[in-house]
């Protein structure tokens, strides 16, 4: 029997919830941080806000974030989410970011989620801004045409990896064991050890089989830790 992963994310309830989720994954907006939001869900909804609702400030910080944290993104899940996205503009955006990060081969499939003619970032005036300022080098040769002056790139707008790892449990586990479903499952279990296997799989978008293995291994280590503590007390 095959166990499908639950893939479909639940959209944040309103712009304030999205802003808090973005702060929760290390984007420095003036809002309280959501507690450890799912990274790929937040990236997808931020890109929809930027590309569909023309929020270029969000898009600028998102691109900077991706430039810093791409090694810790679950490329498989992000690719599936973006491929299921209806908006051609959103798919073009992610295809462009994947091409920018082409040296990371995990993003090869993401680079191909957009096909067809190129897309202008600005729905009016894009050609004018391109003539005036040239092209943003991060998007050069990709499917999204971005003038150089539009998306500012300030690393201070984004938490560095070390600080984000201290704040976000799943990110920390991704640093330790790699950006995989297993890392997110482990983080979810650490946060809520009483989760059933099915609930754990749903919460972290993992398969039932992977969730089952993570629960088994988590229990094993919990047992080892208990024994070690007991031995210490006897000595």
């Amino acid at each position, binding site marked *: 029997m095959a166990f499908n992963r639950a893939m479909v994310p639940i959209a944040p309830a309103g712009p304030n919830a999205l802003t808090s989720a973005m702060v929760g994954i290390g984007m420095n907006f003036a809002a309280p941080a959501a507690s450890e939001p799912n990274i790929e869900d937040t990236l997808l909804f931020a890109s929809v806000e930027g590309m569909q*609702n*023309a*929020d*270029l*400030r969000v898009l*600028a910080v998102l691109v900077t974030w991706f430039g810093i944290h791409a090694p810790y993104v679950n490329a498989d899940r992000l690719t599936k989410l973006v491929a299921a996205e209806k908006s051609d503009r959103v798919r073009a955006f992610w295809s462009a970011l994947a091409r920018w990060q082409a040296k990371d081969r995990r993003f090869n499939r993401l680079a191909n989620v957009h096909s067809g003619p190129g897309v202008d970032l*600005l*729905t*009016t*005036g*894009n050609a*004018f*801004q391109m*003539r*005036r300022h040239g092209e943003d080098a991060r998007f050069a040769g990709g499917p999204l045409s971005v*003038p150089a*002056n*539009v998306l500012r790139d300030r690393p201070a707008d984004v938490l560095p990896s070390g600080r984000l790892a201290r704040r976000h449990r799943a990110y920390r586990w991704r640093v330790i064991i790699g950006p995989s479903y297993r890392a997110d499952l482990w983080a979810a279990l650490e946060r809520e050890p009483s989760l059933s296997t099915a609930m754990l799989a749903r919460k972290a978008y993992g398969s039932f089989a992977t969730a089952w293995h993570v629960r088994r291994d988590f229990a094993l280590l919990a047992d080892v830790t208990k024994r070690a503590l007991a031995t210490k007390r006897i000595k």
Partner: protein
Amino acid sequence: MQPRETLDAFDRYLAGRDLGLDAVGRIDLLRAKLFALCDRGIDLGDCLALAPTAEELATIVPWVAVQDINPDWPAHVRATLADVGRRLGHGV
């Protein structure tokens, strides 16, 4: 105190004994934001939030159109502000 809609003028919000507080009027604020939208392209959200009327856009276009000597600027301004009008349902 409600802001007055004035051209080339400030609205006085507070006139105390030792301190006065002025702010740009609505039309001048719209001019500044719509110019910024045409100039750097990132202010669409703010411009839509300010919701200029069709009449306000028509008033502002000639002013923004002469703020840059680039020969393509006037056409760029007209296209950009027409887009703002369309998004606001003015049928420009």
